[in-house]
Every structure is written in structure tokens, then in C-alpha cells.
């Protein structure tokens, strides 16, 4: 008996250094491999030891898009954890798994599963960080889940000896609960029919990396910056298997200029950063545009200005990436909202960059980047496209001209090393051959040539989902949003149910902006029935609606404390 839309939320809380993310990952995969849908996310502060951090996993028999405020099962790795989350726990129904020594009077109203975790560690001569495994085993026992799936995930994740040690600790936690708390045991999941072998547990950052790999990425250069760094880690780990070059240069200035050099020489290249690093890249962004060199730049937003809150989420950089760098030039800005979109956008952003020889920016955020979803394996939607690239021999009758003015504005793109072609690229305004020019007519035709690509893009856009619409065909209200907020909004709409007649418009292409499509959808309701939800202070997508449709949405839910909205907050906004 599957209760539709039922969600169960698990949270592991403790200090930095407690191994919370590793255990969260293990538990997420354990539920996924049992045929369940999983959404996981975390919150941590920018320190290596101490402080409070948590990892939450929401599990369901039906697809799940966001985390919940309410916690059903809490693994508390120290005494403070239950107190910090006390408002998210429900008396009588929430369970707390905690070490015997960490029990306190303040949590007596909850279902307490206390274990002698430290004693077990001592007996087994195991490190403190391994108490997670005892707790995971206890949790699996408590919800009457299949412990062999947990064992399998340990075996897949760690070397044999480490996996075995963790498994034996998990079994001790499991058996302890079965023995001491038989009255609490309750089967809560009934597995669905999802094919197990075809599924992966993937974050937004990993999905972007996979999309890039699938699209032929061969060179990746990035300077570490939270929350973009896990793209660097993931690709660095994979470089041997995939024969791609991954380097961490001295700065974001170096990173973007290296990928410009690599792309100029014919290799699909990418960099990723957050707002601060992108600030350093802005000059080179214009360089790529002027020199017509295809680059893909991932900007993973976190709250600013300046250092802001490095490990939290934000949608505050939309206007920044739309306008970054001096001068006017065409660019593409794409904002995925879940791993499937992140994969697909990363995949086709290379096609767009190479076909149109311009910079493409993928605008993500921490909530998308570091949250994990159980997904089906991604499949590239169409073939790799390169446009007018010349890779071996130039056979033209006249001398090769890198910036030849063509009807569609896109010039044949020979790379250095091609026979019979001398390729000259320039950051200065230039003539067809790539020599600096100040000639007024020539300058005009070069600027126009670059902007002709915008016309091509208007046609190209039709191939992609530049917007998505969810919910009622004849809505009474429409929510407009973008990026990772898609998840909590879909959850909220699900909870409210069909009879509420709520529609949700997700804008994916920010530049070029799909004006007509957005207009069409929004014409379904009156202006007062349009609502905007964003993770920023000033309503940046709303400012685009204002710009393109002269629409200023009055009802706004703007959250800018570094946290994504919970579905319940969205429901409160919709009902308020």
C-alpha cells in the first residue's frame, strides 16, 4: 500500500569532521537502490572542524523534488543536535537516534533510540567517525529496511577492508535496535518498480560535469571556489578514465584565459566558479566574445556581495552574468533547475558555444549544485554539433580570414595547425583577417556580424525547452520562478493538490529571453494572479519580466537568507 506523495525525512546532524556527508551519501544510495526516490541536501558553514552541519534525505515511493522542514528520523551525533532542530521534530512521531551519553531532558518527549555508540567503537577499536555506521545500521533496523542494500553500498563505495569494518559496525547498530527497541520497529517503505540498475545518485554539479563530458569536454581549468568546487573534484577524479585534462591554475583569471586558449586551439573547454571568481573572469568573458572563441562558464551562485556566505545558496547573480564585461555582445545564459536539466544544458551549451562561437554561461546555485537526487542515467538528447569548424585543411580559394563576414554572421573557424590557414584572433575590434581596425564602416559591420548571431539564436532556441510549464492547464494563479527553486515549488504544488489550480512557469533561458513564450503562458491569468518566487532580495527575474513584458509582479516571495524556501513556506505564501 503506497500512500501517494508520502515523504519521509531523515537528518544526520553533527560537527564538521564527523563524516556527515559521507554517511548521508551512503544512506541516500541505500534508499535509492531499494527502488525509492531520494532528494538530499545539506547545510554547513565554511569551517573544517566543529560548528553544526546537517545532511537531510527525503525519501518517497514517488518522485521527490525537495527537502522538507519536518524531520521524521534524526541521527544526532552530539547532544546539541536535537536542540538545534527541535522545532523540526514532532513529539510522539519523530525518532532520535543518539548516543546514550548525549541524551538530555529536553528531548524526553520524542522517541529516543539511544545506543552505546562509543562503547561499541571502543570494543571494535574503531575511529570516532565510524559511529555514523552504527547509527546508519540502527536506522535501517528501525525502519525495517533491507540491511543487505546498505552493505552493498558500503562495498561499492570503499575498499574492501574499510567497507567490512563499517558493515560490521552497522550490523551491531542494526542488531542492537532489533533487540532493544522491538516495539519501535516499523516497516515504512514499500518499494516501487523502478529499475535499480539504471539509476544514479547525482548532484547538480555532477550532472553539469557529466553533460560536459558527454559533449566532448577535453580541457577543464578551475580555481577552487565553493560551491563550484565539486565539479573540479569530480572531473579530476575521472580524468584518467576519460582522458581529459583537468588543471587547477593560479586564479580564475588564469582559468578562463586557459580555456580561451584551449578553445582557440580547437578543444572543448570549460571552467566553473562562483560569483567572486566570475567577477575576476568578466574581462576575459568579453575577450571570448570579441575574439569569437567558444567557452562554457559555469557560475554557481552563493550569497554576496563579496565573500558573503560561501556555503549557502542564492539567486543574486542573474543580472550580473547577463551584463558582465564591458561593451555589447551576444551571449547565452541558461539556468537549469534539476540534474536532468543541468545535464542537458551542459551538454547542449557546448553545441551552442561552438556553433555560434560565443560564450555560454550556465547559471546554477548552491542548492542545485550540492543537493543530490536519485536519477535515471542521463542520455544525450542529440548529437554533438561543431558548426563551421575547420580541423585539418583549409580549401578556400581566397586567403583564410578568421572573421570573414558571412550572411549569417558566423565565420568558418579554422584552428591553429590547419593547413593553408593562418588564423589570427584579436581582442581588439578587428577586420576580417583579425587585424585591429578603427574604420567606422568596418567597425559597424563587425559589431553587426556578431549580433547577427542573435537572429540565428532566435531560431535555434526553438529546439530547446527555454521555459517549462507545470500544473493546471487553466490555472487561477501562476508562479514564476527559475533555477533550483523549481524543486520546492513543485513539492508545494503537489502537496496542495490539483483542485488548487496553480500553474508554475519555470524560465530556463535567461538570454536570449523567451519573451513570447513567457508572455503566452502569463496571459492565462490576470496580472494580479501572477506570483514570483526567488532566492534574492530584489526579484531579478521579475526585473526581466519588467524589461521584456512591462510586467511588475506585485506578489513576491523573496528569500535571501542563504536558504532555499521549504515547500511549507511556499504554501504559506500562496495561501497568504
Amino acid at each position: 500500500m503506497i500512500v501517494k506523495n508520502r515523504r519521509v525525512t531523515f537528518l544526520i546532524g553533527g560537527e564538521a569532521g564527523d563524516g556527515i556527508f559521507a554517511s548521508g551519501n551512503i544512506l541516500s544510495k541505500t534508499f535509492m537502490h531499494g527502488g525509492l526516490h531520494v532528494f538530499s541536501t545539506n547545510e554547513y558553514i565554511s569551517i573544517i572542524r566543529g560548528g553544526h552541519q546537517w545532511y537531510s534525505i527525503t525519501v518517497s515511493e514517488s518522485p521527490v523534488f525537495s527537502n522538507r522542514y519536518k524531520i521524521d528520523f534524526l541521527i544526532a551525533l552530539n547532544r546539541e543536535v536535537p536542540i538545534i532542530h527541535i522545532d523540526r521534530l514532532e513529539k510522539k512521531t519523530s525518532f532520535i537516534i543518539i548516543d546514550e551519553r548525549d541524551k538530555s531532558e529536553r528531548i524526553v518527549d520524542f522517541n529516543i533510540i539511544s545506543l552505546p555508540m562509543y562503547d561499541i567503537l571502543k570494543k571494535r577499536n574503531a575511529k570516532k567517525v565510524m559511529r555514523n555506521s552504527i547509527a546508519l545500521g540502527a536506522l535501517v533496523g528501525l525502519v525495517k529496511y533491507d540491511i543487505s542494500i546498505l552493505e552493498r553500498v558500503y562495498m561499492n563505495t570503499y575498499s574492501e577492508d574499510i567497507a567490512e569494518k563499517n558493515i560490521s559496525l552497522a550490523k551491531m547498530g542494526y542488531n542492537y535496535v532489533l533487540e532493544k527497541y522491538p516495539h519501535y520497529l516499523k516497516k515504512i517503505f514499500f518499494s516501487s518498480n523502478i529499475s535499480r540498475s539504471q539509476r544514479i545518485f547525482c548532484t547538480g554539479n555532477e550532472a553539469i560535469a557529466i553533460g560536459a563530458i558527454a559533449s566532448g569536454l577535453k580541457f577543464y581549468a578551475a580555481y577552487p571556489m565553493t560551491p563550484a568546487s565539486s565539479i573540479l573534484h569530480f572531473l579530476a577524479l575521472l580524468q584518467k578514465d576519460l582522458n581529459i585534462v583537468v588543471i587547477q591554475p593560479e586564479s580564475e583569471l588564469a582559468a578562463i584565459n586557459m580555456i580561451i586558449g584551449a578553445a582557440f586551439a580547437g578543444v572543448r573547454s570549460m571552467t566553473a566558479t562562483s560569483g567572486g571568481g566570475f567577477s575576476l573572469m568578466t574581462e576575459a568573458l568579453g575577450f571570448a566574445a570579441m575574439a569569437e572563441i567558444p567557452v562554457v562558464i559555469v557560475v554557481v551562485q552563493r550569497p554576496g556581495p563579496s565573500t558573503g556566505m560561501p556555503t549557502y545558496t542564492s539567486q543574486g547573480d542573474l543580472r550580473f552574468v547577463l551584463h558582465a564585461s564591458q561593451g555589447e555582445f551576444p551571449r547565452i545564459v541558461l539556468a537549469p533547475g534539476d540534474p536532468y536539466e543541468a545535464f542537458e544544458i551542459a551538454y547542449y551549451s557546448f553545441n551552442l558555444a561552438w556553433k555560434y562561437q560565443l560564450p555560454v554561461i550556465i547559471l546554477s546555485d548552491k542548492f542545485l549544485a550540492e543537493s543530490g537526487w536519485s536519477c535515471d542515467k542521463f542520455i544525450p538528447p542529440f548529437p554533438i554539433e561543431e558548426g563551421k569548424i575547420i580541423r585539418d585543411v583549409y580549401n578556400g580559394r581566397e586567403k583564410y580570414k578568421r572573421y570573414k563576414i558571412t550572411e549569417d554572421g558566423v565565420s568558418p573557424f579554422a584552428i591553429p595547425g590547419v593547413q593553408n590557414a593562418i588564423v589570427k584572433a584579436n581582442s581588439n575590434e578587428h577586420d576580417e583577417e583579425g587585424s585591429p581596425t578603427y574604420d567606422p564602416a568596418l567597425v559597424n559591420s563587425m559589431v553587426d556580424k556578431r549580433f547577427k548571431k542573435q537572429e540565428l539564436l532566435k531560431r535555434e532556441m526553438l529546439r530547446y525547452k527555454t521555459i517549462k510549464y507545470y500544473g493546471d492547464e487553466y490555472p487561477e494563479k501562476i508562479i514564476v520562478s527559475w533555477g533550483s527553486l523549481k524543486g520546492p515549488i513543485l513539492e508545494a504544488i503537489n502537496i496542495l493538490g490539483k483542485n488548487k489550480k496553480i500553474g508554475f512557469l519555470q524560465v530556463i533561458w535567461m538570454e536570449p529571453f523567451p519573451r513570447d513564450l513567457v508572455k503566452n503562458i502569463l496571459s492565462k491569468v490576470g496580472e494580479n494572479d501572477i506570483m514570483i518566487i526567488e532566492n534574492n532580495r530584489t526579484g531579478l527575474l521579475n526585473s526581466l519580466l519588467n524589461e521584456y513584458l512591462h510586467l511588475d509582479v506585485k506578489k513576491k516571495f523573496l528569500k535571501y537568507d542563504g536558504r532555499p524556501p521549504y515547500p511549507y513556506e511556499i504554501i504559506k505564501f500562496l495561501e497568504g
Partner: protein
Amino acid sequence: MGSIYLTNKKNVWCPGCGNFAILNALIKALERLNLKPESVVLVSGIGCHGRINQYVNVNSIHVIHGRVLPVATGIKISNNRLTVIGHAGDGDAYAIGLGHLPHAARRNVDLTYIIHNNMIFGLTTGQVTPTTPKGMRTRSTPYGNIENPLNPLLLALVSGATFVARGFAGDIKHLIYLFEEGIKHKGFAFIDVLQPCVTFYNTYSYFRERVYRLEETDYDYTSFKKAIAKATEWGERIPIGIFYKIRRETFEEQLFQLKDKPLVQQEIRINLEKVYKILS
């Protein structure tokens, strides 16, 4: 001159500019090395020197201020069969783009990095640079420069450059030799060229009176210690020549990805199953 390495672009440098010597020496070096124009990429920065890419008939990219090295590095990693030569001014190399120098040097990417060091900002009409002598009056230091100049050779040496040289635009024959050796060198070749700016800082006679060729002494360029000592010699006598040269594995040689062929020539073979294994 009729070299295959020369374009027919009209040269706009000031008559007598030190850049001419650098250009001519480069053309001669390319001729001697007999490199195919299609196989060479010239990366130039911002300043008077930046025009050099217009005059040399090889592939080129004129980059933004200070970023010659990362762009050149990206090109070399993409296609390590190309000969990549970077040209930068002292503003490019030692002011705004200095941060890249130690890293390119320690990385030992197989590049040649030629600095047109005229000790002044020429194209922006005569401001101070990191190599402008102390006390000098420029448009931005009308009461005299109070900052100590940088020692670029010493910096290149301690950063791990495997080829460190200094040339003088008044000695073109010697410059051809340095460029030829620098381009032939496997690894990061750093060549600082003392380049008089006839308009804002004419140093021809100053340097002519002082420079001497290391190659005409019994100097041994394989000793790091001697190179450090030699790099600090600056005054009545100023050494030019190869200060230091050793062979160390290059960055590209250590990239297993490039073992079979250059990155750009590798077919795109995508096997996502290996990726998915990590995530399952």
C-alpha cells in the same frame, strides 16, 4: 625583406623603436628553425609590442592585458605539436600579469616567453612600470618614482624557469641566438629583452655602454647558484645572454592524456558507464 614569416601589414611602431629589433630577430630565428607558419602560434599582450602578431605571418592571438601566459598555456595543452611563443610588455608581464609568471615557470610548460621590457608604459603615453628605475620622472610619477624596480630574471629563476635569458634590442644578432635557443628549449623559456622606447625612454646609449655578452665570458649557465649571482649584476656592467638552462620534464610531458597524440586530435569517445559507476 620577403620572408615567408612576414605579413604585408604596415608597421606603425615609432621609427627606431626597439620592437623592430625584436620582430626582426624573431623572423630570423623562425627562418633558422625552419618552422612551418601554420605550426607556430604567437600570443601577444596589450601595449606597443602587442602589434607584433600583425607583422608575423604565423597563427596569432592578441589577448587582454596581462594574460599572455594562461592563453599560451591553454593552446599548448590543446595541441602540444604547436610552437607557442608569448610576447608581453613589462606592464603585461611584470605589473598586471605578474601573478602568472611564477606558475608558468614552475609548471614548465613548453613555451617561449619574450618580454619587451622598455621600462615604461609606451602606448598609454609614458607612465611608470615595475621595471622603471627609482627616481625616474614619468607622467604618473612627476616627482620621481619612489618604488624599487623589480628584478625579473631573479624572479624567473627562483620560480623554477628552466631557461632564463636577457637580450638587448640594440644587439640583434645576439637576440636571434637567444630566440632560437629559447624556442628550441623544451620547457618554459623566459627571455627579458631590454627594449629602448625612443619616444618615452630612450635607453639605447645607456645600455650600449653597459651590456656585455655572457657567451663571450666563461660563464656556465648550468649552475643555478651562478645564475642567481649573475642576475643581481646590474650597474656599470649589465650581462646579456643565457643565464640559466636546464632540462626538466615539461608539464605536457607529464600529462598522461597526451601520451598518444595531442588533445585536439583525439576523437571524442564517450563512455559514461565509468562515470555512472561512481554515482551508483
